[in-house]
């Protein structure tokens, strides 16, 4: 028997290039989220931390460092690593503990700082999230792996370059209205089309940036906090799934089985249909990833998401707003902060804090976060009380 769990506070810093260390940024957003939830730090029973590439800062095991900075050094913590889906996996852990009655309040923090690395080193670090000896050691980078998905999608469904570009243009426009976003300026289709090819067919503006950033979420048992100061996100579903790690060993290249499975479980848990989702944050590390995610989760038939995006259906004021935050593509992708930051966006939308990027309707929302090329995936569904 589970009890209802809420996200009661959520905070993020501005993604991009951080001057401070990861532990400083993580501690600041954590305190902000705790205060937003109306809690005293001493009410936190456990801290679930994600910092997949912390060793790039010569620092591991940052949970106790964050808790010490928050004045709660006695609170237990552990690090959750699931590549780009690390902090959504941490959120899942927090949900399980709170909904299961083991904790009344839990802190989820995700942070990454990689901007001190050059492109070559950052690309090499990210390649470690794939199956290194069987993919990365054979020349694959992350843009390369997603480019093969794009190549297969283009060949099978006729997905057009401008359809990929419409994802980039939409998400940059949304990011231009998001003070947390790495990129703050819209781009045109010409800018997209004239950008250099990184891994064919993916261009520079098909790819998310290397971002620093931190985001935090406070999860509480609803029965223990009956009078919230903020509009809480009711966690209606928290689902995780995996799939064969090496992409070449999967039966198909044009979808991510883990996204399909996680979304099916989430829709069943939440007892909602895709048609009931008002808006969503999906994992768009590359433009093709957004299209594949929308098809994997059943929002559009196979091969149709590109056309729908180009027609404006997923725009902020469209029928189904996708990535009003700007997504990984333009808000930025600080690996271990990304999953938590998707929840920050949904929290701000539910609380009317999203300013110019406020979506028309925000009663039910979905967050989809992928680890590596889909060997892990998380889907969370939230609603109002």
């Amino acid at each position, binding site marked *: 028997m589970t009890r209802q769990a809420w996200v009661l506070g959520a905070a993020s810093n501005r993604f991009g290039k951080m001057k401070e260390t990861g532990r400083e940024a993580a501690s600041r957003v954590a305190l902000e989220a705790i205060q937003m939830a109306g809690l005293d730090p001493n009410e936190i029973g456990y801290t679930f931390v994600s910092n997949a590439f912390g060793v790039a800062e010569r620092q591991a095991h940052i949970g106790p460092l964050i808790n010490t900075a928050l004045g709660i050094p006695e609170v237990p913590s552990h690090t959750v690593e699931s590549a780009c889906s690390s902090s959504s996996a941490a959120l899942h852990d927090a949900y399980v503990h709170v909904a299961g009655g083991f904790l009344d309040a839990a802190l989820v923090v995700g942070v990454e700082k990689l901007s001190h690395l050059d*492109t*070559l*080193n950052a*690309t*090499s670090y990210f*390649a470690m999230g794939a*199956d290194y*000896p*069987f*993919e*990365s*050691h*054979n*020349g*694959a*980078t992350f*843009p*390369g*792996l997603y*480019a*093969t*998905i*794009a*190549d*297969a999608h283009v*060949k099978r469904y006729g997905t057009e370059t401008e359809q990929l570009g419409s994802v980039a243009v939409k998400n940059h426009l949304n990011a231009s209205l998001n003070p947390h976003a790495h990129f703050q300026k819209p781009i045109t289709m010409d800018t997209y089309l004239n950008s*250099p*090819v*990184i*891994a*064919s*067919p*993916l261009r520079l503006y098909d790819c998310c940036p290397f971002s620093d950033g931190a985001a935090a979420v406070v999860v509480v048992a609803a029965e223990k906090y009956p009078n919230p100061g903020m509009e809480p996100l009711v966690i209606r579903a928290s689902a995780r799934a995996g799939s*064969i790690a*090496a*992409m*070449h*060993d999967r*039966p198909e*290249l044009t979808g991510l089985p883990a996204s399909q499975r996680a979304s099916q479980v989430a829709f069943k848990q939440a007892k909602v249909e895709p048609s009931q989702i008002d808006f969503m944050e999906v994992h768009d590390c590359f433009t093709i990833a957004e299209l594949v995610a929308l098809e994997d989760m059943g929002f559009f038939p196979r091969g149709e998401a590109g056309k729908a995006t180009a027609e404006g259906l997923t725009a902020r004021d469209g029928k189904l707003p996708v990535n009003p935050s700007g997504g990984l593509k333009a808000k930025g992708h600080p690996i271990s902060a990304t999953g938590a930051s998707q929840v920050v966006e949904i929290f701000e939308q539910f609380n009317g804090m999203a300013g110019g990027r406020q979506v028309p309707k925000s009663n039910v929302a979905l967050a989809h976060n992928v680890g590596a090329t889909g060997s892990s995936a998380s889907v969370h569904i939230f609603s109002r009380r």
Partner: protein
Amino acid sequence: MSATVPPRGLPKEPSAAHTINEFEHGYEEEQRLRGFRSACGFVTATWGLRCARCGQYDLTEFILSGKGVVSAYTVQNVPSDEFVNDAPYAYVLVDLDEGGRISGWMPSVRAVGDLSIGDRVHWVPSYKPGVQFEKDAPAPGDGGR
């Protein structure tokens, strides 16, 4: 999908024989591309203790032909550190003639037009990292492709 389960209390020795090191040593030093075939017919080079598709324990080690057709590819202009002196090059997924798919790279492919999905390729031993492929020579009379 039914996995063969060993009797309780008696750990079954996985049939997968070679290690990841031996896989890499195979193509680097022995001119052999090692792979596995599962009882369900799934073929892979990727190391494992049970079949990733069906969960069977019975993986038979065999030597892959290294021959097949390109099922997807990308020309990478921004490499990782291991390939920094080789970009641009193609990262390819190759459907092997004996079944199964494998990742590899093709230093000779430097532009999108140099390769097409469906092209026949073969593995070539190399002192460079990874599993390296080359396009097959055109058959007589096929116009170069």
